[in-house]
Every structure is written in structure tokens, then in C-alpha cells.
């Protein structure tokens, strides 16, 4: 199989995921009548704006009402509100796809905009910073510790990590975060309880960056704590599986130093399955980010999700559900490319 073919197959599934989520979103919204409500809200908001501007040119109230009525009909037709919901599905899909979801009820960006897309894009970088940093730290610790464990299978540390990784299957990320707040912020007063900047925040760029790092320690610690056990364990198992292969024994028999056997023979071969387990853990990391941001009041998309739920804001929840799927699909695709780079059997 060529690279292009592999990527197409993997890409097709991911594209299918995107389409499936879009369909779930629009069909649910349409069938429950929520989409009507959202569009009607958009119509009346547009009408309110137009009334203000028209009132300055059209003085006669009767005529103004008449003009507005015709505008309203135009808008209803434009949004397809004169047709049943299932005939509007293509429009609805495009609307979700382009995040054209109108305004949030009460949530505002820092600049005061209430547009759902602007709200989401304002929070996007914060989430990406948090998740990628945590993933990178987890990956490094996991690789470093996992390889060392594989060398000392059955040691006390090895067994401890095995149990810890099993236990982390049962550990809710948000509860872990709350406990960290209780210990490090409330009891010991070492770290901030949440947010991203201190109030007042430092004025110079360097101070600002330090401030963000300062606030990011606990959320990142939480994300790392819940995933590092399982990840270390899977690295250890993959390395162990490869280390039992005959070509490794052959390499050792040739008299190669252990470090070279580990790097060139074992790790090189174990890399693709390790990448696979990173891929499989991604959905969990995103879910963990939603909850961890909520706990630490970290102004990312996950916290926005929580705020959207609390303010009963359908448009925000829809936009975020879709956006998280997009991020997931894009990240998955990048990891698939990484997999191809790592696994020569796919390339040639």
C-alpha cells in the first residue's frame, strides 16, 4: 500500500466521523425544534437592528411596520423557516460547518462580541496550549520511564507503575484537579486556584508569560497525572514485546552495546505501536481538557462548554461540540501522518 492510499483510507474514516457528528448535531437540533428556536432568535435580532436604522429614515410608523414585515418574511425565507426542518438540513450542515451560529445569550468575548464563532476562536489557543503542553510532558515522561521499566521487568517500581496505570483507569480528572486545588492552593497557598492571569496582571510581556505559566502548572499537572500512568505502562509493554523478538537477541549476540540495541533495534521497531497508543489516548485527553479547564477556570473551549451549559446556550454548545470534533479529527490525521513516518512498512 502506498502512502497516499493509507492516508486516504485513514482520512476517509476521520471524514466519516466529522460527517457523522455534523449529522447527529443537525438532526438532533432539527427534530427537537431547537434549530427553529435558534434561527428565530437570529431573525428577531436582525430585525431589531434594522428597525433602529430604518426608524431614522422612515418616519411613518405604519409604513415602518410594513417594511419590517416584508423584511421579516424575507429573512424567514432566507433561513428556511417556512420549510420543515428536514428540508433545511443542507443549510444547517453548512451553518454548523462554518460556525455561523449567531450570538450567544449572555457570554461575551473580552472585546464584547457575542458571536459564537468569535467566542470559540478566542478560547481556542488557550485550550491548544494546555492540551499540547500536557501531552508533550506526558509523552516525554512516559517514554523515559517506560523504557527504563521495560529493562527491569518485575521490579518493585515496575509493579507499582502497573498498578498505578490500572488505577488511573478509575481516576476522574476533574476530581483529581479539585484535590490539587484543595492541597496546593487552599491548604498550602502555593499556587493560584484558577484562571489564567493574576489580577492585576503584569504589564510587561515577560511577566505575562510567567504569569500564565504560573497559572498553568496545576491544570497541566492534573492532565499529566491522570494519563501518565497508562501511557507509561503501554510504552513499557510495547518495548517489552519488541525486546523479546529474536532480532533483538541476535543484535545482543553480535555484541552491540545495550544503548544501541535499545535505540536502534527496540525503540525504532516499537515506535509505531507507541504512536498508535498515543492516537488512541487523544480523545481521552480532549475530554480531560474539558473537565480540567472547568475545574481550574482556565479560559479555554472546555470552560466555555461549561459556561454554555450553565447559561443554557444551545448555539455555544453546538459550536463547541463541532469544534472539539474538528480538533480531534485534525490532530488524529496529523498523528496518522506521524505513524506513516515512523513505520517504513507503510511507506514502501
Amino acid at each position: 500500500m502506498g502512502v497516499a492510499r493509507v492516508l486516504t483510507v485513514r482520512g476517509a474514516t476521520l471524514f466519516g466521523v466529522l460527517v457523522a457528528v455534523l449529522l447527529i448535531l443537525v438532526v438532533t437540533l432539527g427534530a427537537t425544534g431547537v434549530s427553529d428556536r435558534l434561527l428565530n432568535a437570529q431573525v428577531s435580532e436582525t430585525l431589531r437592528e434594522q428597525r433602529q436604522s430604518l426608524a431614522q429614515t422612515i418616519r411613518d410608523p405604519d409604513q415602518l411596520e410594513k417594511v419590517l414585515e416584508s423584511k421579516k418574511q424575507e429573512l424567514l425565507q432566507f433561513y428556511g423557516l417556512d420549510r420543515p426542518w428536514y428540508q433545511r438540513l443542507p443549510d444547517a450542515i453548512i451553518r454548523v460547518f462554518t460556525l455561523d451560529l449567531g450570538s450567544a445569550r449572555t457570554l461575551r468575548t473580552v472585546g464584547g462580541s457575542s458571536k459564537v464563532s468569535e467566542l470559540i476562536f478566542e478560547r481556542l489557543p488557550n485550550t491548544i496550549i494546555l492540551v499540547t503542553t500536557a501531552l508533550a510532558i506526558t509523552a516525554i515522561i512516559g517514554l523515559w520511564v517506560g523504557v527504563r521499566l521495560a529493562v527491569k521487568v518485575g521490579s518493585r517500581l515496575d509493579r507499582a507503575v502497573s498498578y498505578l496505570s490500572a488505577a488511573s483507569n478509575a481516576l476522574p480528572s476533574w476530581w483529581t484537579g479539585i484535590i490539587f486545588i484543595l492541597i496546593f492552593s487552599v491548604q498550602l497557598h502555593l499556587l493560584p486556584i484558577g484562571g489564567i492571569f493574576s489580577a492585576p496582571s503584569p504589564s510587561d510581556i515577560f511577566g505575562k508569560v510567567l504569569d500564565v505559566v504560573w497559572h498553568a502548572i496545576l491544570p497541566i499537572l492534573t492532565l499529566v497525572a491522570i494519563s501518565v500512568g497508562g501511557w507509561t505502562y503501554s510504552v513499557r509493554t510495547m518495548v517489552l514485546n519488541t525486546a523479546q523478538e529474536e532480532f533483538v537477541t541476535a543484535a545482543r549476540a553480535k555484541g552491540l552495546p545495550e544503548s544501541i540495541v535499545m535505540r536502534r533495534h527496540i525503540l525504532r521497531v516499537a515506535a509505531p505501536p507507541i504512536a498508535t497508543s498515543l492516537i488512541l489516548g487523544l480523545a481521552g485527553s480532549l475530554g480531560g481538557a474539558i473537565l480540567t479547564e472547568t475545574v481550574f477556570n482556565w479560559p479555554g473551549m472546555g470552560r466555555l462548554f461549561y459556561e454554555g451549559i450553565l447559561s443554557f446556550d444551545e448555539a455555544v454548545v453546538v459550536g463547541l461540540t463541532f469544534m472539539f470534533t474538528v480538533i480531534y479529527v485534525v490532530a488524529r490525521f496529523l498523528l496518522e501522518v506521524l505513524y506513516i513516518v515512523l513505520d517504513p512498512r507503510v511507506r514502501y
Partner: protein
Amino acid sequence: MLRRSVVKELLKTGSGRVGSIFFLVLIGISIYVVATYPLDFGVRSWRNPAVWADYPKAAPPVWTNLLSNLRSAEHQVLDKSQPTQILMGETSRTNVYEFRTNFLSDEPPTLISFTLAGVTFYERSPLLNIRFIRPDQNQLLLYSFVVPGPTAGEQAPIKRYYETPLRVALSNERSAISAVADFSRSSLGVDVDTAQLTREGILKILFSSPEAGHFRILKGVYAVQVAVELYDSRDSVGSLRLVLGGSTFGVLGTDSIGRDLAVGILFGFPVALFIGLVTSTLTTLVGAFAGIVSGYFGGKTDTLIQRVSDILNNIPLLPILIFLAFIFGQNLFVIIFVLIAFSWPGLTVIMRSMVLQIKSEQFVEAARVLGASRMKIVVQHIFPQTAPYVLAQMIFLAPAAILAEAALSFLGLGDPSIPTWGQILESGFRSGAVYVGFWWWIIPPGLLIIFTAMTFVLIALGLEPAVNPRLRRLR
């Protein structure tokens, strides 16, 4: 593999044994709760603030007293339905109800409240007098009350406080405050004005004596006498209750609206088990069925099932779960349904490959040659081979379901009619209990979520050697 040997294998491993014991504990507590709690506990008790009015707010557990030098007041609820003493007068009879308590705390109670239920009378309205008697034998009339007489057209016997009992928060009652002000002036020789008492509360004075300019807690036996004067032999009084509010309460403390956390947390046991077991069982049924159909029948059905499960398997679960729970309303069964709908494909993919392998084995071929029907081959020859694996997967699905429900509850999407551990944590988080350090509200429900999830993980780990024969040989 036979069922008995699976259990045997499970009990051979350490984690299997521990997991089984944990599971029995969970089952035991759940049976107790289901047997003793009303089914509408969530709506009738947990979400009803009136039920918790007599409980202290945000009180830590009683056993925290052991950790500090200062002994805090324990919450006491004293009930009486029979009079301690009956005094006969010329035209009346007085039922005296005496509540006694040995008070040894280093701080006054947080509240005193009095509740009266079920009064029946014929001629005249009964009169209530509440006396407060201190260990130093000083006493005062704290509160007097006349049961409201008949309204126009009301016929004897007249019944009062049967539907809703009369509750008097004595510590905030205006007449009690002025009674305490008088008492302080005449018996203790300390002048306090009522405005100050209203602000600071009367309990500090009621439960202490002045010593060198400031009040010192008076320890000893306190008594509260409630005298009910009845004017007809047929008159009766149902039950009385006196609550001494403490700053500590029960085994697990209370939350900020006074709910006994132990009660809510106990209710969480059967709910968590229900979520875990129902979701995992149904998911396994759907997943195994789809996997067998896909693997055994092949063809277009196979392709379709594989494509669908491939896509569902790759949808990030939490965002879509949030969305569906948000739109379809917060209903536990909706949550369980969605969890099933998105988690069956994992099992299907693996089942299919197992079935494909077994299908080509000789004993299956032999059965087919002998003329066994497809149904019979699947039920008798293929499914039993996969059963241990299916069982292990089923057990692994349970903690995932419990954690998913807890996460949703934490985001405010839990089913309000059924309190769960996740919801208790959510109310603690939302009301800021974390930031003021109400650890007793936060730690136990979280630990129990972990405990329950861990139980299933341990059992699944214990089953591994039974499921994976290669592992059995290695050990």
C-alpha cells in the same frame, strides 16, 4: 470455558480477590439502600430544602473533634412523643416534656429549634410554655405559645399541625431574645441590649456564665421543659422535637444547605452500580451481537457494520455526550442510552476478528457438515469460545460508564431527580466549597467514585489470566 472455572480463576489472583470483596461490599450497601430508601428520595428529600431545615449548614463530620483540642458542639435531634410528667390541675392537665442533654462542648450550639406535630383539642386552645433550665439551676421562660383556636365554622375536634408541623427557630425568635435579655440582666447581672443579641445570637449567653468580664461556656446537664396545658381530657399532643444545632454533624458532615452528606452518598451506591452494570451489560449485548453477525455472516452486512462501528468508535465521546444530554434534558436513561450507542463498536471490532478465527476451525466445520443450523453453531460453538473475553470486556465497560456519568453530572448535566456522587461533587464545586476548604463535601464522593470504578478494574485484571491463556502460562 465453564462458568465455575472463571470464578475459580478470578479468586486465584490477588486483584481478583480484592475486587470480589469490594464488589460484595457495594452490593450489600446497595441492597440496604434500595430496601430502606424511598424510590423518589431525590425529589422528595434530597432536593427539598424543608427536610433539611433543622440540620446545621456546612458542618464537618463529628469525628473531626478528635483532631482538634477545642471540642465543638455536636448536632442533636431529641424526639419525644410521651410526656415525662403529667400534672393535674383543677380545670386542666399539663403534659410536661423534658429534654435533657449533657453539654460538654467548648462552644455554644449553632441553633435551637422546636417542632410540634399533631395537636388535637376540643374546648380551649392548648397553651405551650418552654422553659430553659441551666446546670447552675438558673432558669427562664424562653417562649410561650397558644395553638390557634377554631376558625369560623370549624367543628371540634380541632386538629392542628398534622400536615405541616409547627417549627419555631427559638434562637431567632423575637420573644425569646427579649426573654434572654431580661434573664441576662436579672440572673447573670450583665446588661445586653436586644439589638446586640439579635446580631450575635442568644445561644452564647444561654450556654455560658459571665466570668471576669467575658462569657465562659457552662458545661453540664441542660434541660428544656415544654409544658403543654390541655383543657379537655380528650385533647392530645402528637410529637415534639428539639434540635440543638451543632457545628459538627454525623459521619460525613453536611453541605451548605444542611443536607446530611452521608444520606446522599449512601443513595449514590445503588445508582452507581445501576449505571455501571446496565450500561456495560447492554453495551456488551449489542456489541457482541453485532460482532458475531459481522464475523459469521460476512458480506454486505459485515461491511456496513464495520464502517459504522469504525466511525462511532472514533467519535470523541465527551463532547457528543454533553451535547445530547444538554439537548435531550437531564435524564439518567438518556445518558445511559447515549453511552451504549457510542461504546458498543469497540467490542464489535474485536468480536468480529475472534469469530472469523473460530469460524474456520475444524470443530465448527464438523458441526456444519453434520448439518447444524447457523443459529446452533453460533450459540453452541462460537459464542462459548468468546464468552470469557466478552465477560472481561463487560466488566471493563462498567467503570467507564460510571466515570462518564460522574463527569456529566459534574458539568451540571446530571439527572436532578436521582442524586449521584457526581452531583454532590458538582454542588460542592459550584457553591465554592472547594475554595473555602469544605473537604468533607469533596473527598468522600470522589473516593467512592474511584472505589467503585476500581472494583471493576480489579475484577477485570483478575480475570485476565482466565481470558488470556498465554498470560496464565507466563505466571
